């Protein structure tokens, strides 16, 4: 079990999750433009099985809209992870992050490079 905290302040993204190396489960909080999303998902580790040459991840979740508690904003993230000397020494994550609001109809896309925070 490792605790990953990464972010990119300029892009408004902060990720704070726990991972379970035994099954690849990931859960925690993804903050996008100040909105905290509860997220869960999966990662696979570079080298853990033949053919896995890059560590990758996807997460999904939701948050209540700031203006309307009954109207969720949905989030999705997928990316590739880099390590120094293996998990948990995470050194970065290249991600695509997407939010879709049922309140405003906004669909936001961000491509970002996250660093340990």
């Amino acid at each position, binding site marked *: 079990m490792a605790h990953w905290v990464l972010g990119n302040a300029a892009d408004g993204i902060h990720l704070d999750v726990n991972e379970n190396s035994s099954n690849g489960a990931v859960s925690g909080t993804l903050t996008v433009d100040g909105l905290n999303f509860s997220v869960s998902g*999966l990662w696979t580790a570079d080298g853990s099985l033949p053919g*896995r040459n890059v560590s990758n991840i996807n997460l999904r979740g939701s948050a209540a809209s700031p203006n*309307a508690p009954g109207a969720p904003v949905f989030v999705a993230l*997928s990316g590739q992870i880099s390590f120094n000397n293996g998990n948990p020494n995470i050194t970065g994550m*290249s991600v695509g992050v*997407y939010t879709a609001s049922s309140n*405003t109809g906004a669909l936001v896309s961000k491509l970002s490079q996250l660093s340990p925070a």
Partner: protein
Amino acid sequence: MWNLASVDGTISMVVSADGSGNLSGAMTIYGQEYSVQGEWAASGSVAGRNFSSFSLAGSFDTAPSVPNLLAAAGIMTGPGGWPISVQISGNIAPSAGAGMRNFSTVLLPVMNTNANDLAVAYGESYVVLEIGAGGDGLVCTAGWIGPNNGGQASPFGSSDYKSAGTAMTAAECADVVIPDPVYTGLKDIRVPHIETAATLRPVMIQFLAEQDHFANPPLMEPHPHIAKVFYDTAAGALVLQPIDDASTLAPTNKITFNHGRGRRHDGGVVEFR
């Protein structure tokens, strides 16, 4: 069921969206079929939900237990069971190597060929128009109006619209397709006036052609007035189901058929009278 594809056919989804907010199904992206799961919220279902939005995640194994991991989010317009369009953005992260790939596109309805769905659509409709190709473009070749019930048209109530309804005369049919008064070369398909107390009156418009005459999706643009898109193998036609609102009688926006590989041609504008 959300069954839509991008105009170029490279991205598609076949996803079940249930009343509890669960999404489950598949997305095919650049030839790879991802099993996907997610959540959606329906517009209007709760105060403040002004748009239908969703996110989903999924995977595709490029080799055994070597997954590409997908995540995407989007906005769906239209009824929950019959989306008019889906705007979607997402990213694919491979495990096998570098080369993440992101996408952002609009998905449009593909041709539904489910016999039960088609029967329901004919049964709830008031008019069926059969449009063929003549020397001057589109031409009305036949039409049927729902059964007369005390001076008012009723829905066909059956997929056997030819028996349930009344066939239009040649003169009535000749008045259906006319040149658009504004756009040279464009045709208007004018739905005959019908007397009915119903506010919303679905119409089935058949465009006679082999199924492979059309790409999937068969239309190039979203159409807020066109709820359902079918291919009817019995009729040998692409079938669109516009629904008019008797209070506005607003025409559809211009329909453009998608023939794939960038080919297209005008399919006219549907007007209600």
